[in-house]
């Protein structure tokens, strides 16, 4: 129990004003952590509010993220959507699992980190925007941290079990999940597992989208030992195996996507004393990924090729939280080594197989220190700041990798960068209903290994082969965030507005003296820095308590991105509004939802190869009921998504593959 409170408090440590609120959540029954995922999006370290939603463990990680207004998902198929924060992409945000860095092995970004995590693994999903002390490893756009559920000694119930199953009519998708926790004051063991399988799905009018099937299983095991009142040791192992995963937006599918994620964690916690919390983690993860074009028809495959990729990361972090009267401190030291390699072997008819690296044995060594401080200097005022310093060394780790790039890199291939982030903000609560905040920060990031060393990586969006550039400057941004909250008995409104001004923004630009590698590509681009780019927008969330049993939620977000010459940046989501009405009657929770995506015509076809997307409006309806039967608690739900079978696709859907049509989803979960 103490660990939950400590855990939540640590996460919200700088957010003094909500410490009370957090404490109350911490006392809730641990069944929450078996049955539900806490979704937390924090608008920066100084945020005094946290919007928490609960997500069923049957709801896929992708769908959970999709409902967070700051998050936009890039979709390449029915599986493994890539999360972005305010349309800032993978290199600009940190996606971590329990603070552990992990890097996908697929050059086509078919395996974002989120694809290896299932809701059964999660206790909490945190979205941190911008430079934030809770973000692991600096970064520009912020980060998403998947906090894993784990064995907890001293839980109120000694044995907890959950079993669940679900079925979706669209694609005949099934999923089966189970979780178990055994907990005594000294020792705890937890396991969870899920199996998911889906056939190809159908867009509106029952039009099947070929190559959109997938199948996977995922299991996690956690063991914890309470060494003494303040010390806990925990070992975790997560395994994820995906097979036969179709990608309708690409010319290839995935043969297998395997992840093994292990860690050892030590926790120190005290309620009294200067240092309330110290957490140290050692970790290792390994990803093995291979693409597969054998299921595609011969006329679509110009030449058969094998494209495997591997990524492993070993790292550590140690963080502490401390408080002294009105001050709260958090400090963290972290580091990792990541090795990434991907290659391609092409088999021409009547010719010798052709082999080349697309990521030629690249390596990154990273060391960082994060410090954050929050000062509740007055009942109405909190000042907070955080800073991150990091050292990054990137190189190709063997001669064959260096040979591959000898044709485009003259001289040494390695890069060393020292980066720093700093953010400061103030939070003002003039009345019990109103809160205001302002944050100003300066952030930077080093280019990713793909951006330094990628070799002819084909991007389906603009049809270009991309070359890395190991001379890239670090990307920098100035960030300003304004926020306001109004909260009273019947309405709560949260508004945020932001502006990021970038310098040395990393984009691909055409290079004319290179010939394409991919048959049918439009040309070759190389990553380069452009002098500036800007990103601005905002989010508005509303909650109306219309009646004791009737609530209306509205989440809206909008972003605009431009490069140095005013051209619209690619993959920026248009205005989106998600509105839902929740009604509780006779023990049934019903919801009626509507989703509106505006048309996106702010695109630059000539420069970035992007075309516009029409607007779409969707309706969903659902009902859920929890009931007890013979000492077991059941939750049954029925949901219809895309009620009116609307044909649509969203702007971040690569190749504009149509999204699913009407879908009946039934799920039942049992906790005992």
């Amino acid at each position, binding site marked *: 129990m103490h660990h939950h409170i400590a855990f939540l408090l640590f996460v919200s440590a700088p957010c003094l004003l909500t410490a009370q609120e957090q404490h109350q959540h911490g006392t809730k029954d641990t069944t929450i952590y078996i049955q539900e995922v806490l979704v937390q999006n924090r608008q920066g370290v100084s945020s005094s509010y946290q919007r928490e939603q609960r997500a069923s463990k049957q709801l896929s990680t992708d769908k959970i993220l999709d409902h967070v207004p700051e998050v936009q998902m890039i979709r390449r198929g029915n599986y493994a959507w890539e999360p972005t924060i305010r349309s800032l992409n993978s290199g600009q945000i940190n996606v971590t699992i329990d603070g552990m860095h992990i890097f996908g092995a697929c050059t086509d970004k078919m395996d974002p980190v989120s694809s290896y995590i299932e809701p059964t693994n999660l206790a909490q999903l945190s979205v941190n925007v911008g430079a934030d002390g809770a973000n692991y490893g600096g970064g520009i756009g912020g980060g998403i941290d998947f906090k894993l559920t784990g064995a907890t000694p001293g839980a109120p119930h000694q044995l907890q079990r959950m079993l669940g199953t679900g079925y979706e009519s669209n694609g005949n998708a099934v999923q089966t999940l189970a979780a178990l926790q055994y907990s005594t004051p000294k020792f705890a063991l937890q396991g969870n597992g899920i199996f998911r399988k889906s056939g190809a799905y159908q867009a509106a009018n029952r039009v099947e989208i070929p190559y959109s099937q997938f199948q996977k299983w995922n299991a996690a095991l956690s063991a914890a030992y309470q060494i003494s009142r303040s010390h806990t040791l925990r070992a975790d192992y997560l395994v994820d195996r995906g097979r036969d995963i179709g990608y309708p937006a690409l010319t290839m599918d995935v043969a297998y996507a395997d992840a093994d994620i292990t860690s050892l964690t030590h926790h120190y916690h005290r309620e009294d004393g200067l240092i309330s919390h110290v957490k140290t983690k050692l970790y290792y993860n390994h990803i093995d990924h291979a693409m597969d074009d054998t299921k595609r028809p011969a006329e679509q495959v110009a*030449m058969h090729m094998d494209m495997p990729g591997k990524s492993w990361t070993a790292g550590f972090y140690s963080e502490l939280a401390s408080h002294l009267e009105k001050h709260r401190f958090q400090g963290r030291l972290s580091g990792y080594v990541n090795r990434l390699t991907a290659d*391609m072997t*092409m088999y*021409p*008819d*009547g*010719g*010798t*197989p*052709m*082999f*080349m*690296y697309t990521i030629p044995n690249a390596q990154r060594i990273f060391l960082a220190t994060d410090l954050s401080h929050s000062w509740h200097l007055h009942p109405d005022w909190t000042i907070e700041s955080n800073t991150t310093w990091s050292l990054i060394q990137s190189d190709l780790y063997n001669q*064959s990798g*260096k*040979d*591959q*790039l*000898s*044709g*485009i890199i003259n001289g040494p291939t390695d890069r060393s960068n020292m980066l720093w982030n700093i953010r400061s903000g103030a939070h003002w609560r003039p009345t019990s209903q109103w809160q205001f905040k302002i944050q100003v920060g300066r952030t930077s990031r080093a280019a990713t290994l793909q951006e330094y060393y990628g*070799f*002819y990586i084909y991007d389906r969006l603009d049809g270009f082969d991309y070359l890395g550039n190991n001379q890239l400057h670090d990307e920098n941004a100035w960030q300003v965030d304004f926020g306001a909250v109004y909260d009273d008995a019947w309405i709560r409104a949260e508004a945020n507005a932001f502006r990021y001004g970038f310098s040395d923004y990393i984009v691909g630009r055409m290079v004319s*003296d*290179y*010939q*394409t*590698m991919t*048959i049918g590509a439009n040309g070759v681009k190389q990553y380069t820095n452009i002098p500036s780019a800007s990103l601005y927008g905002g989010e508005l969330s509303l909650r109306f308590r219309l009646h004791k049993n009737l609530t209306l939620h509205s989440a809206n977000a909008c972003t605009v991105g431009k490069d140095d010459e005013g051209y619209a940046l690619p993959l920026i989501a248009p205005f989106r509004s998600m509105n839902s009405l929740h009604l509780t009657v006779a023990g049934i929770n019903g919801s009626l939802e509507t989703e509106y995506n505006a048309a996106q015509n702010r695109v630059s076809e000539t420069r970035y190869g992007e075309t516009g997307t029409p607007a779409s409006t969707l309706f969903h309806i659902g009902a859920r009921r929890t009931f007890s039967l013979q000492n077991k608690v059941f939750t049954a739900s029925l949901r219809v998504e895309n009620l009116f079978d609307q044909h649509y696709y969203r702007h971040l859907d690569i190749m504009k593959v149509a999204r699913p049509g009407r879908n009946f989803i039934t799920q039942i979960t049992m906790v005992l």
Partner: protein
Amino acid sequence: MKNLARTCYSILVVLILISCKKDNIEDTDLPHQEEDKIITFTGSDNILYTLSLIQPAAPKIGINDLEVQIDKKGSGNNVSPVKDLTLAFTPRMPHMGNHSSPNNVDPVHSNDGRYKGKVNFTMSGDWRLHFTIKRGDEVLAEDVALDLLF
């Protein structure tokens, strides 16, 4: 008598063989020994030339040293190196839509008909090096192709 004749004859053969060292000879009837790929072409001057690939002997992915030997066939079996040519080349992959590679360096004459440059193999597989050979402004031969695979 027979022994002396035989000895003298042997010494004579040895002397002749010693004198046939590749590096110093203008005219020789022995072919160059390192080459494993030889292309013969007729120039616009109606002379028969040979283009031999000396390096890379063990090609690898990335930048390789490229060395070719160009000789002309004279009267009889005489082969002499040609030192006054300008070479330009493009490496292409016949199975990849004939796409080329960037950052190659056209071979330049170094010594005795040996031309040295650089070739960039972006991947392993079948490659064809297309040479255009000029003497001054005059094109001697166009598209002399040398195949290489690894």
